[in-house]
């Protein structure tokens, strides 16, 4: 009998080690048979500068060493979609990207690559977003995403409409990657957060628009290579006229940061924060519920171990 018990527990541990802590918590939330001991599923920080908030949040999550091992190749995917300056909040905060690179480097990452498949002239987006300068200063490397040859097709077996997608090789070939979106309003998808940010790792963006945008965004989130963390930049958010914004009147400074390995949870939390500024029915951001249905993650924040920190 003892031997059988041993096998059982070994199997459980083995299966558990396949899952990332967040998805594990999500999938087992209903039948809470395996206890996940004191893992933090989400950290939200408010009231500091990007670098300070990031360092604090990563510390709460168990330190960067938990995600990045020595000698690993790291990729960071911020939102750099638009040729706009940082104050417009159309792109991820450059200080946040720089701070994350520093953390990865301190954990011994062999290289940190940063890219986005931009919507406008990619070189101008990289420069004017301030991200190129921040990345190079922190010791990372900006790489292009402007040509189909940088992408490789992979299967998306769980996808409903999108069964295949061409994903940037940097993501496919790296050891670990971080999804670093900015929280903003979006004319088409209603809001752009962590799952919408995945459109920037895919080559054919038009496929999304012509095959039910929301479903394709949810499909993209089922991709096999998930980010270690979704780091939602809410230092400045774009409350209206997204995703580009017209003027700085579209921008609200919330000085916040939400981090979770769970796409759905991160987007849900971000939507709740966003709704305080611009009331939005989360059901209208249809891809969130669709992704939950595909078991990408959970909208039930109350079932997660969420740490909220005010600085």
């Amino acid at each position, binding site marked *: 009998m003892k031997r059988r018990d041993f096998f059982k527990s070994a199997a459980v541990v083995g299966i558990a080690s396949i899952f990332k802590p967040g998805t594990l918590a999500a999938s087992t939330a209903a039948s809470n048979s395996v206890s996940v001991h004191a893992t933090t599923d989400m950290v*939200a920080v*408010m*009231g500091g500068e990007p670098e300070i908030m990031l360092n604090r949040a990563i510390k709460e999550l168990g330190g960067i060493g938990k995600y990045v091992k020595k000698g690993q190749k790291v990729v960071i995917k911020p939102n750099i979609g638009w*040729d706009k300056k940082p104050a417009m909040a159309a792109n991820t905060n450059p200080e946040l990207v720089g701070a994350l690179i520093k953390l990865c480097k301190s954990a011994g990452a062999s290289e940190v690559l940063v890219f986005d498949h931009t*919507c*406008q*002239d990619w*070189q*101008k987006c990289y420069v*004017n977003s301030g991200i190129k300068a921040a990345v190079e200063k922190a010791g990372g*490397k900006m*790489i*292009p995403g*402007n*040509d189909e*040859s*940088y992408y490789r097709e992979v299967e998306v077996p769980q996808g409903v409409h999108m069964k295949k997608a061409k994903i940037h090789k940097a993501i496919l*070939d790296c050891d670990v990657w971080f999804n670093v979106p900015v929280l903003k309003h*979006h*004319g*088409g*998808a*209603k809001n752009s957060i962590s799952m919408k940010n995945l459109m920037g790792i895919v080559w054919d*963006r*038009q496929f999304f*628009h*012509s*095959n*039910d*945008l*929301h*479903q394709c965004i949810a499909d993209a989130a089922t991709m096999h290579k998930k980010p270690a963390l979704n780091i939602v930049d809410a230092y400045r958010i774009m*409350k*209206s*006229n997204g*995703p*580009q914004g*017209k*003027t700085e*009147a*579209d921008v*609200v400074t*919330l000085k*916040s940061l939400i981090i979770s390995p769970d796409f759905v949870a991160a987007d*849900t*939390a971000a939507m*709740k*924060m*966003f*709704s*305080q*500024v*611009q009331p939005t029915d989360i*059901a*209208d951001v*249809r891809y969130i519920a669709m992704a939950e249905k595909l078991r990408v993650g959970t909208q039930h*924040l109350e079932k997660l171990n*969420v740490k*909220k920190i*005010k600085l």
Partner: protein
Amino acid sequence: MKYLKNIRVALAILFFLPIFLYLIDFTGKLPVQMHALLKIQWIPALLSLNMIIIAVLVVISLLLGRIYCSTICPLGIFQDIAARKSRFFSKKKKKFRYKYQKPQNILRYSILALTVLIFVIGSSFLVVQLDPYSIFGRIVSQLLRPLVLFANNGIAAIFSSMGNYSVFKVEQLTFVPVAFGITLFFFVLISVMSWFQGRLYCNTICPVGTSLGLLSKLSVFRISISESSCNQCGACEKSCKSQCIDSKEMTVDQSRCVSCYNCLTVCKRSSMNYQFGYKKQKIEASQDPSDGSRRTFLLTSGAVISTLAFANAKTLTGKKTDATLTRTPIMPPAAGSIEHFNTKCTGCQLCVDKCPMQVLKPAALQYGISGIMQPHLNFSTHIFCSYDCNICSSVCPTGALKEMAIEEKKLVQIGIAKFRKDKCIVAVEETDCGACSEHCPTQAVHMIPYKNGLTIPEVTENICIGCGGCESICPARPYPAIYVEGTKTQTIAKKPAEAVKFEKKIDDFGF
């Protein structure tokens, strides 16, 4: 005197190399200010009515002859390179192989007269096709640049497969068969002519060469042969790429001499002079066989300059045939009106080369026959006019595109977006899309409630600037549900209204 040739060669390299590199540069690393080198070209200076440059070029020509042709004009230097290359392929590898030829007066003056006449009537057709600088621009842009990009992309592919992204791929999107064909024709024509006959093209076809030839007949300093010391060895004649030295008669045809000073270097008896030659001028003039026509053409070319200086281009070209245009072509921002643009643009392709979005393409027949090569906007996936960019108007050397500050350019309405609901994904498939609104920098295209929580685009025309972001990304293909209709006169769009500022302080997470 022999140092003159070296100075000429040095100057030619000094002008040619930066111009060549600037035209070919696809990385945007060379400074925009280098377009000053193109503003000093003869036709661009005339068209933009840049009086200072026109005056300087005229004075130089009156003083020293056709220095422009042998140093500043990139097409001239290109011919020198072609002629020099031909030496490596000839059997004897001889350096001096030219022979005196009679001038092709009827041909060259007719072409000049025709170019001027057609321009005065109201079409830039021949100016566009024959401006030497613009021909050179097109040869680089349409023939050479694709090869450079091809090589670059090959290197980029190898590098990126090794994980090195320092060289990146640049796609060449500007292939237009009509434009390519014409450019290839001129490339072959000019190459062959210069390969065998030096500066024959400059002295028979090029209207700039012909008009400067008329000016240089009056030039103060000129090449002459001193009859007392010359032993008629013919070295000067053989070295003359303009084929304008007749060593038997000991004459030099001033109208064809491009002041290259090669003859000064080769004469062993120092019989070739470059000196104050006003005394001789009268005698030579009366000997000139083209004397009768010369006066007429002096008058004609005088007329060109004066018309250009005083006439309003708009009144010159009031009657462009509308029938030849189907969908109104979309002109680059800062083009003003279609008449102004069609008159002033020489189709040099500089803006096409510099456009970071590659949305500018040489026109085939969109502007009619006379507008072949002139740029127009052609939207396709991810290809549209960038909101925060005014590079085309800052590089234009001819004044076809007026220099315009970026804030001003952001309000120039180059066209208006038209929405066709019956083709829109939201209406047809009943799913969310909003790609057009997403790409609209002014939110002239914005989403309004449709049904079942869906939103559908709507266009506020008076704030639309026609950048084509919406058309470029619309997933309805091949007939986009939203497209830009060009305007014949660009106007100023209204400034988009700002959003209501959010002033309340948030210090709760909300969850």
